[in-house]
């Protein structure tokens, strides 16, 4: 996790004119069209868009789970880590073993895994939960274990697909705080998908708005507020209002014939 590797790369991920159309199962209309987007090393970018606009599709493309129909995606740091909206932890393993599985697949030798897993659990403030089963953890704790497992991949790029959408406001607030702290400590690059405008402004250094059907980049904002922010900060609210207005306009456009 040396900063040197961060600065050596020109970008964490770069999308050049990416298109995506689903064949057969889809209706033949493009889901994503001409998306160009660069995330700089150490940058925290929030991708904002209405439901169904193709945010998950975009992350799947970057994660390599699916191929673009056109354009190029360059992820110089190797396979990115991906955190899903559902925790996606394996229920047959304990919290600690879930993290160790990621370490094992990364090639960490067995003796080092246990200590590294416990370090990562400490990082998400779940020290002492190593032996807990997934079903014994609360929703917020599960997402934190999932974050620790994603961090265990030691990827330079972390993709997050609405990871906190199913949590209550207070838990989400706590996790925003943890994520910001970890992001600053590890100097990760984060591409964070959400449809919650305030969450995007609370977390991101940059907010990118996608349109729907087809998904295109409509506009982006640089958030020049110091971290850590709070979701109830006046400045966060002010920018959120502006972005929400734009998002509303985007959605209204679809209502017109």
């Amino acid at each position: 996790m040396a900063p040197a590797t961060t600065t050596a790369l020109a970008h964490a991920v770069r999308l050049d004119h990416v298109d995506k159309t689903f064949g057969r199962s889809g209706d033949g209309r493009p889901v994503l069209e001409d998306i160009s987007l660069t995330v700089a090393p150490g940058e925290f970018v929030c991708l904002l868009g209405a439901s169904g606009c193709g945010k998950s599709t975009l992350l799947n493309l970057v994660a390599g789970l699916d191929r673009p129909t056109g354009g190029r995606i360059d992820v110089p740091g190797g396979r990115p880590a991906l955190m899903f909206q559902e925790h996606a932890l394996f229920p047959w393993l304990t919290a600690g073993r879930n993290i160790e599985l990621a370490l094992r697949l990364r090639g960490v030798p067995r003796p080092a895994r246990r200590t590294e897993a416990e370090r990562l659990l400490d990082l998400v403030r779940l020290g002492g939960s190593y032996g807990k089963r997934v079903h014994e953890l609360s929703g917020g704790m599960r997402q934190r274990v999932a974050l620790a497992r994603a961090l265990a991949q030691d990827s330079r790029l972390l993709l997050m697909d609405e990871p906190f959408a199913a949590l209550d406001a207070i838990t989400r607030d706590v996790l925003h705080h943890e994520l910001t702290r970890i992001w600053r400590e590890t100097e990760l690059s984060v591409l964070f998908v959400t449809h919650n405008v305030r969450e995007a402004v609370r977390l991101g250094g940059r907010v990118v708005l996608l349109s729907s059907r087809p998904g295109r980049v409509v506009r982006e904002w640089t958030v020049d507020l110091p971290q850590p922010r709070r979701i109830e900060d006046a400045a966060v609210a002010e920018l959120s209002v502006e972005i929400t207005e734009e998002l509303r306009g985007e959605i209204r456009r679809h209502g017109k014939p």
Partner: protein
Amino acid sequence: MASPDTARHPDLAGLEAGLDALDTVQVRRTPVRQVLLRKVLPPVTAVVLVLAVWKLLVVAGVTEDYKLPDPAAVWDSLRQLWLKGTLFDIIWTSVSRGLLGFAAALALGTPLGLLVARVPFVRAALGPVLSGLQSLPSVAWVPAAVIWLGITDAAMYAVILLGAVPSIANGLVSGIDQVPPLYLRAGRTLGATGARGARLVLLPAALPGYVAGLKQGWAFSWRSLMAAELIASSPDLGLGLGQYLENARTDSDMPGVLLGILLILFVGIAIDLAVFSPLERRVLRTRGLAA
């Protein structure tokens, strides 16, 4: 922690601890008394009731003695077997056949299930046949097995395999089919692909369905074996429970017949309770799928 974060969020650490404490599920072991009361008492009551009704029917004289003997007569048959020292031999002959046959069915059914689940061509070719075979009573195979292999142990094993392999294979197939795609995608993003992905993600995720298949496979093995022993009974073969039952019938020994039925039932239940139910419970419980 005097980082600027916590300085600006003095309440967050406490908030977090409070949330975790509120949300954590408490796992508690049930005390022995409760286990006795809830798990042991009901079946014991049921058995006692059946015996009482049986005894009542005998005392009331609803039918002739050779059709419905006294429970004591059945108990006496059991004592005779015990005193002759053959009781455990008879049980072991059948149980060892059953377990050996089941092990062979496991060794055949597992790779077969994997092939059917993962290779579309094999699935299209064999999938319907496998499901169909499950509803064919394996006793139907006995005549064929006897003609092919004679009245031998080999015929017994053939019938067990034909009964149990489809159950085990089908269990694995449905186990794999029911794996949530999310686990597979999560496995792929972690780098679990190919054979490693199958071993570390796919198979563990499919385990509940597989274990259910094993349980059913054992029931089928035992059933097929008893059918085979009953029909293809010969003095040349070791005396198993099925042959014991058939011999009792030819001797018109009704207490022996009832004892044979009860022993078959008892052994089937005992093995399920000793092996398969604990296995299934363990698999489900670690996943939070059972209390």
